């Protein structure tokens, strides 16, 4: 029998038919929607006069465009309110489950899918958001789609996609202290560039990946899109099954055992061929930081900005207010953002809280600590993280995408520096003129305490 990769196994099992000289028609098991990229898809259905084909396979939440304070009040900004209301209307009308604002399961779409047990190994999952790749951490084929494709899934539960090529990135060895999943992915993107993965679906493997928690694996798969890849995935194992067990939509009891037996088959056959293979040594990875305006422009937090004579590179550094050859460590920053579908889960809040515990927020820093979901918020409070944060001068906000894309009020002012645990440092991503440096929750915590770019390893020692 032909040896298959994990990706092939899942993809091929979902092909309804192959269009000659065209894309595959791929069946979608779970569809996640949110307020920003769905309204035009619903109006498309209305124009065609067709219903939602399988409403039970779509789940909705409001996350991109919601405030992160006073969520019990009506949304102040009119356009945002209308957009969120539109989602509610559409879901009601079409019989789609909605975890809207103030629902105990509301949150960032890629945080709640796994948290509710909706995300399960072997599935195909799509969402009108590029970071759908997050769900790949569970051994799913999950990728972002555009609004026309959201309409296709609503209408037929299928999308039409050419099958991507396959790449395997193996991270071997053990991570050093103070180095997190976020650093692994920033290191990889810096290595292969912001477009190095275009056309590929990536499988992450190797001992360092196996040692990661589910939260860490989600952080890793989340940023696959930042190297241009369609998505990333990791073979499910006991860590995965333990995470899923007992969650709201997970199979129960005997069904769960049966599911686990099936899920254990989901791995790449020995000898299966990838179009591209890359091996990374975990020991080489240090806490990373980006200095430019695409996620491929990264250096170790104590490193120096390289030089590159190209016009784009210089334009990027001008925007950031940096010089080639400069060191970033020790430079003052203004904002710290902990949150997003990359680093807004409970483990991230724990890591941040542990580092700031017993210390005080630096006076020059405005910090936004935004849990990824209501459940993360609840758990943080149960664990007393809110108290630790409060004592150190931080405040826990309410869930949403927040400053990750700055669609709501959480915008970094022009020219200000933000150490952000999110996934994109594009010009203006966190607000017009904002300057974003992507980093791990530990590096963000270190900056929040010292008021400047700091190596988190130095703080871990005290």
């Amino acid at each position, binding site marked *: 029998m032909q040896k298959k990769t994990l990706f092939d196994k899942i993809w091929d099992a979902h092909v309804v038919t192959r269009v000659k000289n065209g894309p595959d028609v791929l069946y979608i098991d779970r569809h996640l929607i949110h307020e920003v990229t769905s309204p035009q898809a619903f109006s498309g259905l209305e124009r065609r006069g067709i219903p939602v084909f399988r409403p039970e396979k779509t789940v909705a939440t409001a996350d991109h465009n919601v405030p992160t304070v006073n969520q019990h009040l009506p949304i102040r900004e009119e356009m945002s309110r209308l957009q969120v209301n539109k989602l509610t209307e559409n879901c009601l009308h079409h019989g789609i489950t909605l975890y809207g604002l103030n629902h105990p399961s509301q949150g960032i779409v890629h945080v709640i899918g796994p948290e509710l047990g909706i995300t399960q190994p072997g599935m195909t999952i799509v969402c009108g958001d590029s970071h759908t790749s997050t769900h790949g951490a569970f051994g799913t084929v999950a990728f972002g789609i555009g609004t026309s494709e959201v309409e296709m899934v609503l209408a037929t539960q299928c999308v039409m996609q050419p099958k991507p090529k396959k790449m395997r990135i193996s991270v071997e060895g053990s991570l050093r202290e103070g180095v997190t999943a976020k650093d692994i992915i920033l290191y990889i993107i810096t290595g292969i560039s912001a477009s190095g993965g275009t056309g590929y679906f990536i499988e992450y493997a190797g001992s360092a990946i196996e040692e990661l928690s589910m939260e860490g694996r989600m952080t890793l798969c989340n940023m696959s899109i930042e190297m241009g890849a369609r998505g990333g995935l990791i073979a499910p194992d006991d860590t995965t099954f333990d995470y899923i067990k007992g969650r709201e939509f997970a199979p129960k009891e005997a069904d769960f055992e049966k599911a686990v037996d099936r899920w254990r088959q989901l791995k790449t056959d020995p000898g299966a061929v990838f179009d591209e293979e890359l091996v990374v040594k975990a020991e080489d990875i240090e806490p990373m930081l980006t200095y430019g305006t695409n996620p491929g422009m990264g250096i170790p937090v104590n490193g120096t900005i390289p030089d590159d004579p190209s016009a784009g590179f210089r334009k990027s550094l001008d925007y950031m207010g940096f010089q080639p050859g400069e060191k970033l460590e020790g430079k003052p920053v203004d904002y710290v953002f902990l949150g997003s579908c990359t680093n807004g889960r409970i483990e991230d809040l724990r890591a941040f809280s542990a580092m700031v515990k017993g210390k005080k927020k630096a006076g020059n820093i405005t910090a936004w600590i935004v849990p990824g979901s209501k459940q993360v918020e609840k758990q943080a409070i149960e664990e007393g993280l809110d108290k630790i944060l409060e004592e150190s001068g931080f405040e826990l906000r309410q869930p949403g995408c927040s400053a990750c894309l*700055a669609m709501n009020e959480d915008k970094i002012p022009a020219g200000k520096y933000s150490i952000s645990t999110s996934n994109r440092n594009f010009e203006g991503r966190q607000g017009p003129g904002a300057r974003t440096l992507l980093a791990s929750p530990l590096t963000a915590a270190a900056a929040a305490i010292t008021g400047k770019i700091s190596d988190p390893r130095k703080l871990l020692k005290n």
Partner: protein
Amino acid sequence: MPKEKITVLRSRYIPLPVENVDTDQIIPARFLKATTREGFGDNLFRDWRYDARGKPIPGFILNQDRYEGKILAAGKNFGSGSSREHAAWALYDFGFRVVISSFFADIFKNNALNNGLLPVQVSDGFLALLFKRAEENPEILLEVNLPEQSVSILPDGPEESFGINSYKKECLIKGYDDIDYLLNLKDQIEAFEEQHKG
């Protein structure tokens, strides 16, 4: 939405020699609050086109009268980042029908094709030549021929061919979309569901 069919397009083009143009630049998130598809062209490249007070920035290419056309020629890795289809809508709404680059991000390419906007991938050398020629002569014309899958600088070249899968090509030429195609497969989709139950 009914889109103009694309076959052969002759037009001047607007050069944007910037690499890694991400969809946050094409249409910033704060303009994604509309619930219809129209009107996004006004905010295309918003923060490059206008300053904080809404005044046009004279240096930006879309603000220069010398350049116009239905074709945008942009640097490598165009359309990276967010999956927002609003980027394709904004380009179309502004009047573009073709985007030329030496490399496109995957999701953007799909979104463009689904919205009657043709992504034409050319070699780095050809793209560099396009930038150079436009700088020398802003009035220079291009011909994009979808049936022939070629793009040429008028009047006498050079010409380069580009790839597109034949299904998508037919959709663009005939003005069909994927949903029409999928809706016709309903029986097959239901049969697939039946087979994969449980």
